[in-house]
């Protein structure tokens, strides 16, 4: 029996520590711990609800807009304030731009190198690679010349003996099984992705005024002035720029990223057998298509025990069950108290002990839905959409399964996505869907403006009595909810239940582990000194701990410290 401790696991915000006990080459027990505290909620108490979103978007440096959005929606829910249709569409386009950005960076820059061994690229045959890529995608960035140029860059890097940021990879690990040609194709797209990361960022910038901290939000709508005859406001020129950015971005998502995710899935089919974990899924509806937010382009719902037939739709943000069902348990988290509390009544009072396997061991609380752990994220999103018969989800899920089958002859069903590889694939499916929706919501906005509607804002009015609200957003990493209590025009409580809290949840009062923890059980580990397989499963959730907990302290010399105890 070997105990492995990896700290930190994420390469972006925050400190995530994973401990696993390995016996006979597979994981027997696992703990997910967030090692730093953040009392983000305490800073919002007593503040003006109209400016809460400015603070909320500093919770995390990577997911800025999602917290801004959840914050204004929470206040609007408490005030029962509708926002104009234009405001919905502008917010939706920002959310789509942000999500595409986030998913592209996750796939290529944060996790591809768990699967792609760049040190084999010098051995690749660029002509062979070009012909593989040509057979499966219409993406124009797969030419032999392009791939040769990338190969030469990698040869230069390796020849210089300074792999720099790439020196941390588990190169030559037996679990790395792509051909040199496949590694070359994927790494070429890794580099091309930098260009599209920029374009998706520009989408957010055009609408939000600035990135990464958007400036245009308001409780009651958005502050974009719409006037087709004024150069200084949102006009046809901006709409045109937005459209051409989207038209540049979408082919990369649908022809490069989506296809690459399918190729990866076809090349590592065994990873559909690992990493299932918690098979209860939660997603909230998002991308409202009308001012009153009664209809949505991304469906929400719940699936319990991995049974797609059991799906219960969440129709809209007024859904009563979710308001009653969500509670956060602190039995194994470094907070005072025991058991679970509904977020409106939630407290954030620290009670630090050491890391105790059977006691408290994380700064992340354990959110539960009717007492049960839930997995959130793109996988929950597409399983719920598929199970509810959502046509767009079906279109891209079916396309993905067909593409994989065309490469390796396998016969996968949507249920098989409940796995480590399924989470990667689901993120790509969601990105392809969001690309289609980007143009649809651009059209909704343009048509509405051309119709003569220039309303973007309804002023909020604060009642004298206390009121509660919840803001829901289906963020890139999954269901995000901000829970607010407003009294006399100020926040009297503020709790954020974030996607990584659901997924990185520690055990609860009953000892039931969270999604990261249970997904690692039976995960293979060939070499305890190089636990690449553990990283694959944890990275499949796209962990981002900053808003789930607090991040502090420096070192950064090592990406991760692996200790075999």
């Amino acid at each position: 029996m070997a105990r492995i401790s990896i700290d930190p696991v994420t390469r972006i915000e925050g400190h995530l520590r994973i401990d696993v006990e390995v016996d006979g080459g597979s994981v027997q027990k696992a703990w997910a711990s967030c090692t730093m505290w953040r009392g983000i909620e305490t800073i919002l108490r007593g503040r003006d609800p109209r400016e809460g979103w400015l603070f909320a978007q500093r919770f995390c440096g990577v997911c800025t807009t999602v917290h801004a959005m959840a914050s204004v929606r929470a206040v609007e829910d408490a005030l029962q304030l509708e926002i104009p249709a234009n405001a919905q569409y502008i917010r939706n386009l920002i959310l789509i731009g942000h999500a595409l950005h986030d998913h592209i960076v996750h796939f290529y820059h944060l996790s591809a190198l768990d699967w792609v061994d760049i040190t084999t690229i010098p051995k690749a045959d660029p002509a062979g690679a070009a012909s593989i890529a040509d057979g499966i995608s219409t993406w124009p960035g797969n030419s032999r010349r392009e791939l040769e140029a990338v190969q030469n860059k990698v040869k230069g890097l390796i020849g210089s003996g300074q792999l720099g940021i790439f020196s941390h990879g588990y190169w030559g690990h037996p679990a790395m099984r792509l051909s040199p040609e496949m590694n070359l194709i994927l790494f070429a797209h890794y580099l091309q992705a930098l260009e599209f990361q920029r374009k998706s960022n520009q989408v957010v910038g055009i609408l939000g005024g600035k990135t990464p901290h958007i400036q245009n939000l308001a409780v009651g709508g958005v502050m974009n002035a719409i006037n087709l005859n004024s150069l200084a406001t949102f006009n046809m020129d901006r709409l045109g720029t937005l459209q051409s950015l989207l038209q540049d971005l979408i082919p990369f998502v649908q022809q490069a990223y989506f296809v690459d995710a399918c190729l990866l899935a076809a090349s590592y089919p065994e990873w559909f057998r690992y990493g299932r974990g918690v098979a209860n899924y939660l997603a909230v509806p998002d991308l409202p298509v009308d001012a009153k937010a009664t209809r949505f382009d991304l469906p929400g719902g719940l699936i319990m025990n991995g049974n797609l037939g059991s799906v219960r739709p969440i129709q809209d943000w007024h859904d009563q069950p979710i308001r009653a069902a969500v509670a956060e348990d602190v039995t194994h988290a470094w907070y005072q108290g025991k058991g679970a509390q509904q977020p409106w009544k939630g407290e954030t009072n620290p009670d630090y002990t050491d890391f105790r396997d059977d006691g408290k061991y994380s700064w992340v609380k354990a959110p539960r839905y009717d007492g049960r752990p839930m997995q959130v994220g793109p996988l929950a999103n597409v399983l719920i959409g598929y199970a509810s018969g959502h046509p767009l989800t079906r279109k891209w899920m079916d396309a993905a399964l067909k593409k994989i089958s065309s490469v390796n002859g396998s016969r996968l069903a949507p249920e098989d996505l409940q796995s480590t590889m399924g989470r990667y694939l689901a993120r790509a499916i969601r990105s392809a869907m969001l690309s289609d929706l980007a143009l649809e919501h651009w059209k909704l906005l343009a048509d509405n403006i051309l119709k003569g509607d220039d309303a973007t804002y309804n002023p909020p009015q604060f009642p004298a009595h206390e009121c509660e609200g919840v803001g829901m957003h289906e963020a890139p990493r999954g269901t995000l909810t901000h829970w607010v209590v407003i009294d006399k025009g100020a926040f009297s409580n503020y709790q954020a239940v974030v996607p990584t809290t659901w997924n990185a949840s520690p055990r609860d009062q009953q000892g039931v582990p969270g999604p990261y923890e249970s997904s690692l059980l039976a995960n293979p580990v060939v070499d305890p000194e190089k636990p690449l397989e553990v990283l694959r499963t944890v990275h499949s959730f796209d962990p981002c701990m900053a808003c789930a907990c607090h991040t502090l302290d420096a070192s950064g010399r090592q990406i991760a410290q692996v200790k075999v105890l």
Partner: protein
Amino acid sequence: MNMKRCNPLLPPRHVCVIGLGNVLMGDDGFGSLAVETFRCEYECAPNVEVLDLGTPGLDLAPYLYGKDLVIVADAVEAENTPGTLRTYREADLLSHQVQLRLTAHDPGLQESLAQLRIVGHAPSELIIVGMVPESCAFGAGISAAVLSKSSVAVHLLAALLRERGVDCRRRHAQLQPNLWWLPGDRSEVVSA
């Protein structure tokens, strides 16, 4: 599209002044404070972007892409007393002479630079204006030690730009900095 300068004797064309750090974390908000104050005291040519980027991690890359000159204001980890100000070069970063305050920035800046170098769009010159923090505790605001040196940092940003031929002048009428995250109005303390 290669936007690199052809002639090194000409002033840099694409310039970015970036504040890094988390305003909710005490002195880690130095970068945001510095660039917001700079924006209000100095007026630059339109080719100079002045940005408070928070803690963007790998999402920093789009802002560095194709720039000739990037100046980053950030809290740095160092042995010196709080409030000590120093400039660092990209080489210092690579040789670990300097560590940015949060792990969240550190891989972000280094990895973003390394990625952009491979595709040929890394900034030609990168300078870090580093401030040693007193406390990066959550919700602590900016310490007196860092606040008292902030105006020096702001002038340093301007001097670094001017040395390189970038058009950057004191405003005749200063704007009021929007330091919305600080408790109370500290702006007059910061203003030089």
